[in-house]
């Protein structure tokens, strides 16, 4: 391997057979290049879909009641379910559930919002402080609804950036201004914004849940419950945790509200992670597909390398005969051919690897098409494919070389 004479002989041969070497090199390099780019894009799609679902805090889930569809315990179907405070409290305190944040929403009906004699057409929602995290909202000014507000039925409101723009554009800040909601006066204490582009949710004015229920005939009714589950190490673990949590939640709510266990429409859960799971399965499929394509690309690479090796050895049969006549030992000839083959495939393979990895490194971060993000490839995987190709080239080169060496010198040198 480290015989300098052997290397010189090989470099001589390579230098003087440029076309052959270049052709072999290109086929190997392009095989590796295509494979790495394919694998990179497979990874890119997975990254893209993962990112797509990150925007809406992926571990959150929303619960709201509908009408029953199945008769149960003598109760007619088409009965409206009404969630109540005690449900929320039971879930957050009694139920042995692993959640991180929990909030609830109450939407007062038929309320009028007035600011300085102007009627504002925005929705009012009563909630608690946890909603900010669950809905993935940021604070632009002031503060959000907090525990004290909820405990003391404070008459405070948090408005969105959109409302600030539309109503309070004359003022430096809307903080400290008062709005009147169906006769009750609320002080603005904060301005929030939504991540992402969803402006619909910026139509809301938030007030403490207790105040909303008390002031606007809510008694203990709630419209909506939201939960955020903890982020776990693996996606699968999060899906599992989510499934367990929602299962228990539904069982409890159905039991409390006399809903048939098989009635899936009475209580709805909007559950992004389960959607994400479906996409993950899809990307898994796409990745498999890319692997399939990559695998066949490698096969094609192996075949073409073998093919070239066959031709090379065939072409060199006479040369092998001459070398034998001059006293070359069989293994020195096989060694020489293999050595050259390994050297050429290795150089070409790593060139393809470096080029494709370089391309992914350079351009990958700039790829921001929907559902494709930062295509990249596992170096170890790419490296092992190059090794595989080299080994294949070796095996492919060995048999014809072995055969060529077995040929009698007389046969090899026989005039055509």
């Amino acid at each position, binding site marked *: 391997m480290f015989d300098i004479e052997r290397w010189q002989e090989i470099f001589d041969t390579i230098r*003087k057979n440029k076309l052959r070497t270049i052709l072999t090199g290109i086929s190997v390099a392009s095989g590796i290049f295509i494979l790495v780019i394919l694998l990179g894009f497979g990874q890119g799609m997975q990254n893209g879909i993962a990112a797509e679902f990150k925007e809406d805090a992926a571990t959150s889930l929303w619960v709201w009641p509908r009408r029953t569809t199945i008769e149960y315990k003598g109760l007619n179907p088409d009965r409206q379910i009404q969630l109540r405070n005690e449900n929320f409290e039971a879930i957050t305190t009694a139920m042995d559930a692993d959640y991180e944040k929990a909030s609830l929403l109450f939407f007062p009906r038929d309320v009028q919002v007035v600011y300085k004699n102007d009627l504002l057409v925005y929705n009012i929602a009563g909630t608690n402080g946890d909603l900010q995290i669950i809905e993935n909202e940021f604070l632009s000014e002031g503060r959000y609804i907090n525990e004290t507000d909820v405990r003391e039925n404070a008459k405070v409101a948090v408005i969105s950036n959109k409302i600030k723009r539309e109503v309070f554009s004359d003022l430096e800040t809307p903080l400290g201004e008062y709005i009147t909601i169906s006769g009750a006066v609320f002080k603005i204490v904060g301005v929030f914004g939504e991540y992402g582009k969803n402006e619909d949710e910026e139509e809301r004015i938030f007030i403490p849940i207790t105040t909303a229920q008390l002031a606007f005939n809510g008694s203990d009714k709630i419209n909506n419950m939201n939960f955020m589950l903890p982020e776990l190490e693996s996606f699968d673990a999060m899906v599992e945790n989510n499934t367990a949590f929602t299962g228990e939640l539904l069982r409890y709510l159905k039991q409390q509200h006399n809903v048939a266990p098989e009635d899936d429409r009475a209580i709805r859960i909007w559950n992004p992670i389960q959607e994400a799971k479906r996409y993950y399965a899809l990307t898994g499929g796409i990745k498999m597909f890319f692997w399939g394509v990559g695998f066949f690309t490698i096969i094609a690479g192996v075949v073409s390398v073998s093919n070239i090796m066959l031709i090379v050895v065939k072409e060199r049969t006479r040369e092998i005969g001459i070398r034998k*006549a*001059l006293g*070359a030992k069989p293994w020195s000839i096989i060694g020489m051919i293999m050595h050259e083959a390994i050297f050429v495939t290795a150089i070409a393979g790593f060139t393809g690897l470096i080029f494709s990895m370089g391309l992914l490194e350079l351009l990958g971060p700039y790829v921001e098409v929907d559902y494709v993000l930062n295509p990249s490839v596992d170096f170890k995987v790419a490296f092992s494919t190059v090794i595989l190709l080299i080994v294949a080239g070796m095996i492919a080169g060995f048999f014809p070389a072995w055969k060529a060496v077995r040929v*009698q010198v007389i046969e090899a*040198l026989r005039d055509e």
Partner: protein
Amino acid sequence: MIKIENLHKSYKMGSNSLHVLKGINFSVEEGELVAIMGSSGSGKSTLLNILGMLDGLDEGSYTLDGVPIKDLNETKAANYRNKFLGFVFQSFNLINYKNAMENVALPLYYQKVGRKERQEKALKYLEQVGLKEWATHLPSELSGGQKQRVAIARAMAAEPKVLLADEPTGALDSTTSYEVMDLIQKINDLGNTILVVTHEPDIANMCKRIVHLKDGVIVEDKKVKQVRASEYV
């Protein structure tokens, strides 16, 4: 130098066996220049292949410079070829992507001679055959006669005990043939043992001894008065 006793060789052709050499007894002293003649099928090429250790023998014995040549495996044969023998072929058999000097240096590579020394030696032998100025030329840039001279230089470079030439002039016109024979004679004058296979009488007459093969046996073995090729050049 060469001693052959009762040499038999046959080839299997399907179910038939072709008896090519039928008991050859033959010896060559050091410094001889021997022509082996015979029509095609007489077994002369087979004899040369056995002498050149490119083929094994069925029966009999072969001794080269006191070393019995038997039980050859590929590696051993390669070793002996490299140490004992130089080959010159009808179709030159130069490696076409190596220049003249590199071709001449190749047997030295297999003798594990260092690169620098190889080149020096190769140039020396090229000079001997009058082609020093052509050292960096590829075979395709050389004439037939020049190619054969390079091939002879290559055969000599390994400093073999015996030079085996298989129809060395077969692909050349007569003038060039005589030039090549002149070179072979000069090498022989230096004391080298040379065997030339040929079917041309005038070439055979330029050797010192002619061995006639017919149907696998030696029918004639005579010393001749050598005709110097330089007379014709």
